[in-house]
């Protein structure tokens, strides 16, 4: 099942990249139409959505942990944060390259850029908190779940700023050909599947690791 998921993800990804680089390529900014910089959109938008999905997973499993106290949920939360941080890093890096190509600056404090930076910082703070709490695993898990819920309260702001607030950063994109739509849909599906696979693999690894540690202690 896992192997099938990986194969489908990579096929979709290669398909999306191939279309995006050939028939579905987006023209560059008016000043420099030959520049391929706008193609980064195919990686940028899916990774922004995936980093938000990972945060949602984190919220759900954190509430679940506080409610049930099952250690597996805490490990899934850690997996979601690590994968979410990966996608948030890709989001900020691709956004920065795009911004340089489009507006000539690497970073500028517009609402969406500020809020996606906040998202990245929240993920990093979670990992710092997790690594610096001594004591029992239950206590650490409970505190991390509390932080995750408080941190999630900042996320609606990220979504509001991306959709409703006037910004030089565009809120939506008009496709000019069916190929572009196809490439976008494929890259979106591939990225979401990739995130799901990563969370699955990482959580599985963490669970095996904790089982092994329990056996060593016993």
């Amino acid at each position, binding site marked *: 099942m896992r192997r099938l998921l990986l194969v489908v993800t990579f096929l979709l990804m290669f398909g999306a990249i191939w279309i995006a680089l050939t028939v579905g390529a987006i023209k560059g900014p008016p000043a420099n139409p030959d520049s391929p910089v706008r193609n980064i959109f195919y990686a940028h938008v899916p990774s922004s959505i995936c980093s938000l999905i990972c945060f949602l997973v984190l919220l759900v499993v954190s509430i679940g942990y*506080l409610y049930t106290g099952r250690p597996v949920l805490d490990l899934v939360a850690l997996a979601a944060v690590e994968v979410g941080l990966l996608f948030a890093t890709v989001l900020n890096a691709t956004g920065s390259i795009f911004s340089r190509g489009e507006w000539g600056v690497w970073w500028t*404090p*517009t*609402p969406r850029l*500020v*809020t996606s930076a*906040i998202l990245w*910082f*929240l993920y*990093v*703070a979670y990992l*710092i*908190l997790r690594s*610096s*709490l*001594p*004591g029992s695993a239950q*206590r650490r898990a*409970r*505190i991390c*779940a*509390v*932080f995750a*819920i*408080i*941190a999630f*309260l*900042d996320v609606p*702001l990220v979504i509001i*700023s991306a959709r409703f*607030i*006037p*910004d*030089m950063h565009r809120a939506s994109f008009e496709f000019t050909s069916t190929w572009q739509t196809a490439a976008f849909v494929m890259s979106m599906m591939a990225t979401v599947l990739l995130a799901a696979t990563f969370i699955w693999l990482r959580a599985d690894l963490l669970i095996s690791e904790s089982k092994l540690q329990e056996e060593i202690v016993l």
Partner: protein
Amino acid sequence: MRFFWSTLSAIFVKDIVTELRSRQVLPTMIVLGMLIVWVLRMASEAILTSKAVMGPVALWISFLFSGLLVQERSFAAEQQHDCIYGLLLAPIDQGTIYLSKLLANTAMLCIFEIIIVPVVLVAFRLGPDTRWPALAGVLLLGNIGISSVGTLFSAVVRVSRARSSLLSVLVLVVLMPMMIPATFALLTVFGAVPETLQGTGALSFIGSFNAAVGYMIAFDAVFVVACWLLFGFAIKE
């Protein structure tokens, strides 16, 4: 309800009296705040920035960092001689412990503000003209926001060895979104930016002074309620 108020006031009075007798945090806070203001005042000479811009910046930076000192103390002091177990074993709601600590931290930050605001106004030659109530309101809202998150995380990090550095990372990260309307509101109070702002910058997405205050009230309400609800999980051993 009477029990709730008597518990709340008992812990609140205990914290304030302890601080007034030992004077452990307040003097340090005030000196740190003054040093921050002094450094930024020097910087504003060098970079030729408008003083109406640097004044609010100095205020928020000194509140954030001095606030961290008082918040860190609020549970570290309980931890020292295992006094925390006395609080936890008492037959009171744990949410009440949070609310009284929040109140004590807010009160301490208010005392700090009363001292540091005149210092900033004199150092940067600023005056809010007729907008004193707006200035006081914005500072109080910021104060509640900073204390609400800080008090919860102070309970979270009390057992960690890297207590103060961890607390500063957690509090500053979660407060980042609130600092945008807070900065905007203070800038408008001192006339550094117009009351309504249009464009595409980070501050213009707030829009107007009233919207900034609205955002701050919303943040405060959400943070206080969420922290109060989650405090029981954070304090449990």
